[in-house]
């Protein structure tokens, strides 16, 4: 019970911090960076549900992100439809596609799954590039309208910040709930031993497809938000490199940790901002981080932070009990 209470407290604390951040960064360009931290957090959580919980890799997740962005972008620039409705439509389409390809793709395991999802990602990337009539091809699609609620238009950093982080917090909360449910346990069971999970009655095949679909839906929503915030999209944002960047976020933050996904997304989004001098170094750094994290810290940075927290908690406890004795 206390564990549950602590979790609620942590989430409330996190949410409060998120809401207060703009007070300290008013007019600062960093607020714009934080908008993208939010979008990337949504994406990383989406991938983490699949990779960290169910243990199924996807190297093509940028495709679902792009699909959401392009469906929103193409429809809202051509038809006078409500953009919010189109976001739902984009999510449904991405989910439907994931569900359909999920059955044959998730039959594959390990390296074969990695290659198949990678192939899927590249095919989608080629489609984004080559269907010039729809997507504008390599030169991109511009003039995507901003979202608005009544007269509140999401066209500046502050408004966008609250827009994106509202979505991010909801996705976080729902994912935390999911991870601690019957479904979350079944996913982790599949990750540990698919055979034993099946013997316990977990329908691994269906469940893997379901979580793949959920993950695609989450990515597509992030894509729609991205399109409306940027008002311009081009295929370069949805290619293989971005799929790898997402993977890096999840791995260095911590596989199977929702807050880890936030941490990974925050680091990878802000790193290039702080290390502008190192602009060309980013992919080398990602590569090194992937290797070193997997070798030496498989739980990601979040596990390191948890260990430090536990250690200091134990220390403080020890000190207070010592004081009580004296």
């Amino acid at each position: 019970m206390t564990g549950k209470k602590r979790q609620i407290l942590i989430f409330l604390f996190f949410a409060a911090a998120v809401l207060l951040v703009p007070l300290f960064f008013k007019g600062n360009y960093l607020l714009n960076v934080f908008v993208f931290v939010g979008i990337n957090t949504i994406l990383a959580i989406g991938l983490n549900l699949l990779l960290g919980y169910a243990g199924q890799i996807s190297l093509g997740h940028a495709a679902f992100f792009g699909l959401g962005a392009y469906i929103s972008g193409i429809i809202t620039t051509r038809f006078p439809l409500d953009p919010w409705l189109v976001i739902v439509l984009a999510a449904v389409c991405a989910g439907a596609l994931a569900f359909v390809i999920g059955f044959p793709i998730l039959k594959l395991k390990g390296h074969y799954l990695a290659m198949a999802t990678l192939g899927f990602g590249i095919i989608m990337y080629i489609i984004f590039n080559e269907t010039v009539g729809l997507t504008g091809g390599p030169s991109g699609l511009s003039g995507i309208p901003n979202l608005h609620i009544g007269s509140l238009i999401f066209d500046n950093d502050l408004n966008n910040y609250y827009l994106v982080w509202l979505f991010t917090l909801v996705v976080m909360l729902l994912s935390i709930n999911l991870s601690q449910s019957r479904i979350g346990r079944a996913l982790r069971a599949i990750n540990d031993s698919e055979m034993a999970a099946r013997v316990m009655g977990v329908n691994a095949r269906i469940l893997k497809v379901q979580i793949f679909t959920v993950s695609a839906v989450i990515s597509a929503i992030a894509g729609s938000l991205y399109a409306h915030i940027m008002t311009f999209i081009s295929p370069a944002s949805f290619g293989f490199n971005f799929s790898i960047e997402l993977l890096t976020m999840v791995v260095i933050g911590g596989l199977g940790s929702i807050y880890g996904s936030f941490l990974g997304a925050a680091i990878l989004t802000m790193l290039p901002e702080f290390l502008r001098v190192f602009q060309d170094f980013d992919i080398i750094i990602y590569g090194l981080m992937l290797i070193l994290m997997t070798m030496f810290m498989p739980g990601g940075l979040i596990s390191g932070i948890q260990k430090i927290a536990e250690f200091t908690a134990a220390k403080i406890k020890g000190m207070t009990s010592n004081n009580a004795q004296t």
Partner: protein
Amino acid sequence: MLKLNGITKIFGGLTALEDVSFSVADGSITGVIGPNGAGKTTLFNIITGLYAQTAGEVYLGEKNISLFPPEALAGLGLVRTFQNVELFGQMTVLENVMVGLHTRSKSGIFSSAFKLPGQIKEEKYIKEKSLQWLEFTGLTDLADIQAGNLPFGKGRLLEISRALAVEPRAILMDEPAAGLNSRETAELALLIRRIRESGITVILVEHDMELVMDICDSIIVLNLGKKLAEGTPREIQENPAVISAYLGEG
């Protein structure tokens, strides 16, 4: 309650099982024994849906369950443990047992993510029930330990608890005493009897003859993929074919 009819399994050109038939009485403890390579584990893998047999049928009660996938069998009340203990190593002991209640609960992704009232109630039920099973096998104190950190003997108990949480009609145990010391084996014998008393049929593959002769009501002997004999422990001990098979091996 469990009936095998002419089970044959051919791997490549190698016949691992040939025309094996027997039936298991409801509420009994049945042992499957035989020298190494007799096909015992293969037989278990076929019954529990991990391998597809080349020929023959498996019945659970009146139902033909041949070629059912393992997840479907769990729903029908047929569950197993593994020789090498297949735990969910990164989950806690309690969570392992909670996975066992998967077929006894039904909340989906949507109700879990939004914590609908039914799901909260079900979660509570799953947890309480799992704690009961841990108590049944004496693992309550270890509930919050990561399963991967358990000593081998406790891990085996956890695997049995998890299988019991499925509330099966029959439980198949693949060499439950392997790797246990004599005290643990004695406790295991006690536990298996208690499982049977709660109305669950137990079928086990085992090398520990003392254990088998002690707890089994009926024994099936396999040799080189064929059924060699079937009977009570006493009948088996006196069966000349069985004796020569075992002496021949030793």
